[in-house]
């Protein structure tokens, strides 16, 4: 997997702010590129894939940031 071009830090943001930030950041990423959101909010694990499904983007998977926080990777498709 190539490195994401953009990462947004939503570690300390409560639900649904990580998803709001994800939606706001999407236009800054070129189609085909990756966008990662780092979020400790437990809802993000379910809501990043659900957002991708609803908004027609690709959910790539979950990783860990250097500090262990969950990092959810999305590919912009449109």
């Amino acid at each position, binding site marked *: 997997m190539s490195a994401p071009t953009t990462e947004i830090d939503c570690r300390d943001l409560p*639900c*649904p702010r990580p*998803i709001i930030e994800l939606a706001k950041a999407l236009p800054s990423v070129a189609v085909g590129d990756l966008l990662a959101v780092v979020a400790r909010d437990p809802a993000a694990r379910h*809501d990043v894939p659900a957002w991708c499904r609803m*908004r027609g983007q690709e959910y790539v998977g979950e990783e860990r940031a250097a500090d262990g926080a969950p990092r959810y990777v999305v590919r912009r498709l449109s």
Partner: protein
Amino acid sequence: MSSPREVYLDSASSTPLHPAARETLLAAVDRGYGDPRRLHAAGRDARLLLDNARAVVAECLDARPDEVGFTASGTEAVHRGLLGLTTATGRDGIVHGAVEHSSVLHAVAWRSSSAHASVAVDVTGRVDPADLAAAADRPGVGAVALQAANQEVGTLQPVDEVELPAGVPLLVDAAAAVGHVPLPRRWDALTASAHKWGGPAGVGVLVVRRGTRWTNPFPGDDGLDQLGGFPDVPAALAAAAALQAVLAEREEVAVRQFALVDRIRAAAAALPDTEVVGDPVARLPHLVTFSCLYVGGDEIVSALARRGFGVASGSACTASTLEPSHVLAAMGALTHGNVRVSLGRETTADQVEGFCAALTEEVHRIRAEAGL
């Protein structure tokens, strides 16, 4: 306390007392104080009322009176029912649908077993009966739990299509379904909760079919007559009266509610970036759940409460655990911005129209404030 002007749209959490229950409760409170095991007049009076309650509940649930026991709650009924089945089979493993009520999940966690299995659901929240049967056909499985209908999204489960291996009993948690839809017929134990159908809180029901092996998993004897100690006789009788009354009007109420819920489903589906979850047809008549992108569950519930509508949410921010609903998660549904609406028997079309208008305005306002 909810405002007298609030339109209460959370009957799936708890319903107001049905008028029939209220009358019965007030009459029984004065007569039903005695110990039903005693042979004096007060005891015989209480025994008469308790037996009457059991007979009515049995008839309503298509069971025999001696198959019915009253518990302190629907949760206690599930715990005693499920753990009593595994205690009797001597196999601790429990197979269950992934979207069962938390009382089932807690009963499963009570005794560890490598044979426990949670069976996945499809996007509507429905369990595949073949998957459930396959999971049950493994060594160490002592019981299977499958709900009649889901408490959060309303999807009906295909209980009567489940073919379990011989010797593996099925417990059906009917708490969300009783009084709303015809119940499944294929079960060995069934549980329900009176405050969900218009009876008083503090009355759960556990039905164990004759011929089903069930052993009290908690201290006490194995009878269903006095599960968990001294029974609340007046409340049990009021619960029975409510059940009888609710079933008498069920079809008429359900037709009306089904159409009103379709109206809410359409209004929610018309909102941008909003997903209505659960089966649109094979569902409870009075309940609908949807999730709105970019909206906090607590925000939308509070906003609707300010507008005079009382609804529930499965979003994490509204839960004591701060974990999102395991039901929504298992379905792959959006967990934030979640709203569950459940109508009462008297909810009107005007109230539903008012709700739909308030919902649309509040979702747009919250999104605009978030900069979206």
